[in-house]
C-alpha cells in the first residue's frame, strides 16, 4: 500500500443556482490578465448543453483522456512518438471560437460621446483585436437554455439517448435544466501530466494538487488537448499554459479556495481523501461502467487502524490523517455514496465528485400528497432527467450507480417531509429507507451536511505542512531567502 493524501471536493448540484459567483471570484483573482481573457478556470455550464469549450465532452472530436488499448492505457491523442509527431501542428485543440471570443464594451463612449439627439451606447469590442464585434458566444452562452436548439440539442450526452428519452427531456411541460460548475478535477491519473513534452506539469505530492510549472512550460499545448475536461488553457500573452491551482496559496494560509469561499448556494465541500496509489493503474483500466465504483474502492477509510498505520509509515502527518477523518468529501463519496465523479470513462480518475441533481420531482397529484417512493424506481416517468443522461455524465453509462444515489436522496427528502410536515405514512418512509440502504442517522447526517453546516464543516482544509515539504527538498532558510516574487528563473524563450 502506498497511501497518499488528496485534497478533493464535492459539488452538490441540487444546490447550485447557476449564479456564476464562483467564476467571477476566480476570474478576478487569477485570470484577469492580458492573454487570459478567454479562460475560466472555474466555469458554470447549463446542462443539457454543449458546455465550454463547445462539445468538450466529445472525445471523438478532441481526443482527450485515456483509452484502453488491449491491456494498456494510452493517451487518446497518441503516445510519446505521436506527441512528437504532432508537436508543431496539434490538430486536437479547441479554437478560440469554441471557447468564445472575449469581449468588453466601450464604456468610455457613454461619457465621452458628443452631445447628440440619441443616447450614447457602449458598443461591444473584442478583447483580442480591440475591434467592434458581434457577440455570438460566451462561456455560458446557453445559460438557462438560451440558444438551446443549437446547444442543448447537440449535447453529446443528449445525442446518445434514445428518441423517446430525448422527447422526454425536451417535452415542453417537463423541460428541465441544471447547472454544472466545473474546475480542474486534480485527477489521480491526470492526462495533462502524462502528455506534457516538457515535463512541466506535476501532481503535488503532499496534497495531490496538479500544477503547471511556469518556468518549465514551453507552451506546446499538448495538455490542452490531452485534458478531456479542457481545464488547461494557453495564455496568449505569457506563452505558457495555465490551469486551476485549487487556490493553493489560499489553502496554505488556511483559507478556502476562492470559488468555494464565494459560493452563494454553499454547494461546495472540500476535504482530504486517503487513497492507495498502487491501485491507480488497475483502477483506471476497469470497464466504463465499473470505473465509478472502482474509484470509490480506491479511497481508504481514514478510521481503519491498518490504513492509519500504513499512512504514518508512508510519511503522512497525523494532522493530515485527522483532517481526512473530518473530511466531508469522504462522507459524501464513501460513507453515504451519493457523490460520483464526472465522466469517469475518460479514465483520469477525477477527484472532484458531484451529487447528481434530483431536481424537483414532478408530482402525480394524489389528494394533495406525493407518493414518490413506491413507483419512482420502477418507471422513469417521474425522473426529470432520463437516468441514462445522468449515467452518461457521472457513471460511464451505468444507470445502477445513479439509481443508488437517487434512492438515497429520495430517502432524505421523504424523511425530512415526514419529520417536518408529518403527512407521510410510516410505511412509505420505511420503504424509502430500505431502498436507500442507509439508516436514520445517516439520512439525518446527509440532511445536516446538505443544509445546515457552517463553512468549517463544509470546507476542511488540511494543514498543508509546507515546511515539511520544503525541508524534503532544500534548506528552509535558503528557501525563505531565495524564493522571491514571481518567476524563479528567467524564461528561456521570451514571447
Amino acid at each position, binding site marked *: 500500500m502506498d497511501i497518499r493524501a488528496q485534497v478533493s471536493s464535492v459539488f452538490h448540484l441540487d444546490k447550485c443556482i447557476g449564479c456564476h459567483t464562483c467564476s467571477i471570484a476566480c476570474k478576478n483573482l487569477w485570470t484577469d490578465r492580458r492573454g487570459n481573457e478567454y479562460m475560466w478556470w472555474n466555469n458554470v455550464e447549463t446542462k443539457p448543453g*454543449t458546455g465550454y469549450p463547445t462539445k468538450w465532452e466529445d472525445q471523438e*472530436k478532441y481526443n482527450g483522456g485515456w483509452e484502453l488499448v488491449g491491456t494498456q492505457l494510452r493517451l487518446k491523442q497518441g503516445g510519446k512518438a505521436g506527441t512528437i509527431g504532432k508537436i508543431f501542428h496539434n*490538430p486536437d485543440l479547441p*479554437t478560440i471560437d*469554441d471557447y468564445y471570443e472575449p469581449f468588453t464594451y466601450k464604456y468610455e463612449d457613454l461619457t465621452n460621446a458628443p452631445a447628440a439627439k440619441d443616447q450614447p451606447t457602449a458598443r461591444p469590442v473584442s478583447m483580442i483585436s480591440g475591434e467592434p464585434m458581434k457577440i455570438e458566444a460566451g462561456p455560458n452562452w446557453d445559460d438557462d437554455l438560451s440558444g438551446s436548439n443549437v446547444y442543448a440539442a447537440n449535447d453529446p450526452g443528449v445525442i446518445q439517448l434514445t428518441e423517446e428519452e430525448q422527447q422526454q427531456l425536451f417535452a415542453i411541460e417537463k423541460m428541465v435544466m441544471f447547472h454544472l460548475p466545473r474546475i480542474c478535477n486534480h485527477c489521480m491519473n491526470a492526462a495533462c501530466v502524462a502528455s506534457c513534452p516538457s515535463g512541466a506539469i506535476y501532481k503535488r505530492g503532499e496534497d495531490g494538487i496538479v500544477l503547471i510549472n511556469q518556468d518549465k512550460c514551453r507552451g506546446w499545448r499538448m495538455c490542452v488537448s490531452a485534458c478531456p475536461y479542457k481545464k488547461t488553457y494557453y495564455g496568449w500573452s505569457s506563452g505558457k499554459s495555465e490551469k486551476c491551482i485549487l487556490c493553493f496559496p489560499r489553502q496554505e494560509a488556511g483559507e478556502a479556495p476562492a470559488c468555494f469561499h464565494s459560493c452563494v448556494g454553499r454547494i461546495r465541500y472540500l476535504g482530504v481523501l486517503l487513497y492507495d496509489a498502487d491501485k491507480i493503474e488497475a483502477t483506471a483500466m476497469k470497464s466504463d461502467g465499473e470505473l465509478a465504483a472502482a474509484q470509490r474502492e480506491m479511497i481508504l477509510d481514514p478510521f481503519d487502524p491498518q490504513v492509519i498505520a500504513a499512512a504514518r509509515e508512508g510519511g503522512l502527518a497525523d494532522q493530515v490523517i485527522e483532517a481526512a477523518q473530518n473530511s466531508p468529501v469522504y462522507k459524501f463519496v464513501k460513507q453515504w455514496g451519493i457523490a460520483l465523479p464526472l465522466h469517469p470513462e475518460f479514465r483520469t480518475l477525477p477527484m472532484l465528485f458531484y451529487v447528481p441533481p434530483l431536481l424537483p420531482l414532478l408530482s402525480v397529484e394524489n389528494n394533495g400528497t406525493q407518493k414518490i417512493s413506491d413507483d419512482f424506481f420502477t418507471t422513469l416517468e417521474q425522473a426529470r432527467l432520463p437516468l441514462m443522461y445522468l449515467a452518461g455524465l457521472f457513471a460511464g453509462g451505468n444507470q445502477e450507480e445513479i439509481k443508488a444515489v437517487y434512492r438515497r436522496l429520495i430517502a432524505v427528502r421523504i424523511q425530512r417531509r415526514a419529520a417536518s410536515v408529518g403527512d407521510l405514512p410510516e410505511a412509505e418512509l420505511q420503504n424509502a429507507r430500505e431502498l436507500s440502504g442507509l439508516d436514520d442517522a445517516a439520512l439525518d447526517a446527509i440532511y445536516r451536511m446538505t443544509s445546515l453546516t457552517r463553512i468549517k464543516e463544509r470546507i476542511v482544509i488540511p494543514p498543508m505542512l509546507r515546511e515539511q515539504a520544503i525541508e524534503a527538498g532544500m534548506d528552509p532558510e535558503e528557501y525563505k531567502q531565495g524564493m522571491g516574487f514571481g518567476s524563479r528563473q528567467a524564461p528561456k524563450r521570451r514571447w
Partner: protein
Amino acid sequence: METSGWRAEFCRLTLTLAFLALILPGTAAMAATGNDARGEQLFTGSRAMTNGGSPCIACHALAGLGTAGRASYGPDLSELYADYEAEGVAAVLESLAFPSMEAIYANRPLTETERLDLTAFFARTAETQTLPTTSLAGLILLGVVIVFALVGLSGLRRFKGARRPLVEQARKERGVIQ
C-alpha cells in the same frame, strides 16, 4: 572507252560543283573561322584559356547550356552574334574593354585562335538558339509555391471548430437565427 571517259569526266565535274555549292556560301566566314567545338569548351570552362582568363560562363548567360548557362552578372550573350556579326564579336573579344572585364582580361588577353573559336561557337549558337522560357529563380519560386500550397491544403481543415458548425447546421435545418 570513249563513253566511259566522258562519263567519268562528267561525274568528276558534278562532284566538284556539288562540293563547291556546298562550301561556297561559307567561304567568307571560313577565312576567319575557328573551331566551334573548341569555342564551346572555352566558353563553358572545360578547356582553360591559354593566358588564364576566366571562362565566359562564369558571368554570362547563354541559351542552350541548361540551367548552368544562366549566370546573370554580365549580360546575356544569346543574342550577341545576331546583333554584332562575326566582325563585331571579334572586335569585342580582342579588347574586352568593359570596366568589369578589363580587370580580368587586361593581363590575360584571349589569343587569336581562342577569339576565332569563340566567334565560331557564337555563330553556331546564334543559329540554333532558343530564347530561355524559364529562369532558375522562377523554377525555385514555383517549387516553393507548390510545397506551400500542399502544406496549406493538408492543413486547411485542421481546426474545424466545434461551435460554428453547430450554429450553421441549425441555421440550415431550421432557419434559426441565434
